[in-house]
């Protein structure tokens, strides 16, 4: 299957190789949570909710007394994928993604400011169309900011791949399952540091560099968008205060 049209250079969903899907972020979608956000990347749609910082519920999980405990759970809705199949809760893929999100977010949260407390991040996938990992991280960043949790920087994530000898930004499900390499990058936007890097399949060294650069550019674009959303939200809050 042609993933990039050799004549026009357009992809299966009509995007250019370095074009991202439509982004949409909304803050405060779960009213009972301390912080929450909805994030959409094209047809991929996730909700993140943050509870905390609050007292540690399970003392045995506490490792370091001087830092906050960050926990994360990733869950996919039954109807999120095209074909409906029952997956047991806590399957390996979910556990792995939970871990990845936790570690990525931990890198930016100033945990030493909140000793003896825990922060729970819950992400729920409503629609999956490739790049759920990235969308979850972006949603978690928005939700953490909404909860007012101190962070070093905004963490954003984006994926890029390499198909038909073209580097492609922000793969959708069809491109993701084409079997090419898929590089997921997470960065601290302002500090320009990589907190997450994952790749499957093989890729020559020099191509990897261009693909990773593309993904990093994507992350930066998302960071700009997230900042806009947060700024807009803060302005609205200010208006409400009068």
């Amino acid at each position, binding site marked *: 299957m042609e993933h990039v049209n050799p004549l026009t250079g357009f992809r299966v969903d009509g995007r250019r190789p370095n074009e991202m899907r439509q982004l949409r972020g909304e803050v405060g979608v779960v009213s009972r949570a301390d912080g929450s956000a909805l994030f959409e990347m094209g047809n991929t749609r996730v909700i993140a909710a943050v509870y905390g910082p609050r007292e540690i519920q399970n003392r045995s999980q506490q490792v370091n007394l001087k830092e906050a405990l960050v926990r994360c759970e990733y869950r996919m*809705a039954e109807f999120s994928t095209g074909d409906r199949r029952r997956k047991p809760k*806590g399957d390996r893929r979910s556990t792995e993604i939970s871990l990845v999100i936790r570690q990525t977010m931990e890198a930016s949260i100033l945990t030493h400011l909140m000793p003896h407390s825990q922060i729970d991040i*819950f992400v*729920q996938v*409503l629609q999956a169309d490739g790049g759920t990992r990235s969308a979850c991280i972006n949603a978690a960043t928005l939700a953490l900011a909404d909860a007012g949790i101190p962070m070093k920087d905004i963490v954003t994530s984006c994926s890029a791949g390499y198909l038909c000898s073209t580097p492609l930004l922000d793969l959708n499900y069809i491109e993701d399952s084409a079997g090419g390499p898929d590089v997921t990058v997470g960065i601290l936007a302002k500090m320009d540091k990589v907190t997450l890097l994952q790749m499957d399949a093989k890729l020559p060294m020099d191509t990897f560099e261009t693909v990773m650069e593309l993904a990093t550019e994507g992350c930066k674009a998302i960071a700009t968008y997230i900042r806009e959303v947060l700024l807009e939200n803060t302005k609205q809050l200010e208006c409400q205060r009068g």
Partner: protein
Amino acid sequence: MVGLSEGEKHFIRGGIAQDLRADGRTRLQFRAVTVETGIIPQANGSARVRMGATEVIASVKAELGKPTILHPGKGKVSIYVDCSPTAAPMFEGRGSEELSAELSVALQRCLLGGKSGAGAAIDLSSLIVIEGKACWDLYIDGLVVSSDGNLLDALAAAIKVALSDTGIPKVNVSLNAETDGEPEFDISDEDFLQFDTSSVPVIVTLTKVGKHYIVDATSEEESQMSSAVSVSVNRLGQICGMTKRGGAGLDPSVIFDMISVAKHVSQRFISLLDSEIAAAEAADAE
């Protein structure tokens, strides 16, 4: 769970006794309901229902399957509810299983009728494609995104709206010799059959706090309940199912009283939902 001080508990109970609840409602008044349809593109029908801070999503998916040997003339419907941990941290991991199962069973009881499918709100024989060979399997999934009490009523309402939004593709069956008489299905992308959802009931839960009972309880009010009765009522005012929760016993005469109140309230709720569905469909069409 909900942490309330003695004063707050007293305030909630006192307010209910005087017919003026903490959010200004009377005992038999619902919170504002908002409805959206068609929110899950890959489902055959979907809806989001918000009642105050409670938010639920329901999706209906149809797949071609085989009818059971016992009921060759009937399709299959299954209902499954999941409580997302975004709604409350206690739903993390396996924490939501008990509540999810309780809600799923209550909804099955109210919407699907007996084992044979008799008395079901959805006409199961309308799901048949070829008797004994092929039928539509409906998978109804509920997801609790945000929880502030009265989940069962919200889920039932969401399922009712999602079913009215559902289009089942028309199927053309061709029997040819090449495939040994096995029917071949041609699923249409354009023509859809709509359901008759007029007989799908709504659920009204009456929560008993002190001597009085209230509808559409928030989670603070639910924490003060002694018992609750969920009654599912259809448009004709017929009772389709009932569940009692909570530990305290109820006098039979109180139950009859509650049923008649639920019947009365449900008619108001159904017309409220109908107007919301019409508004959502109009917004969708634009």
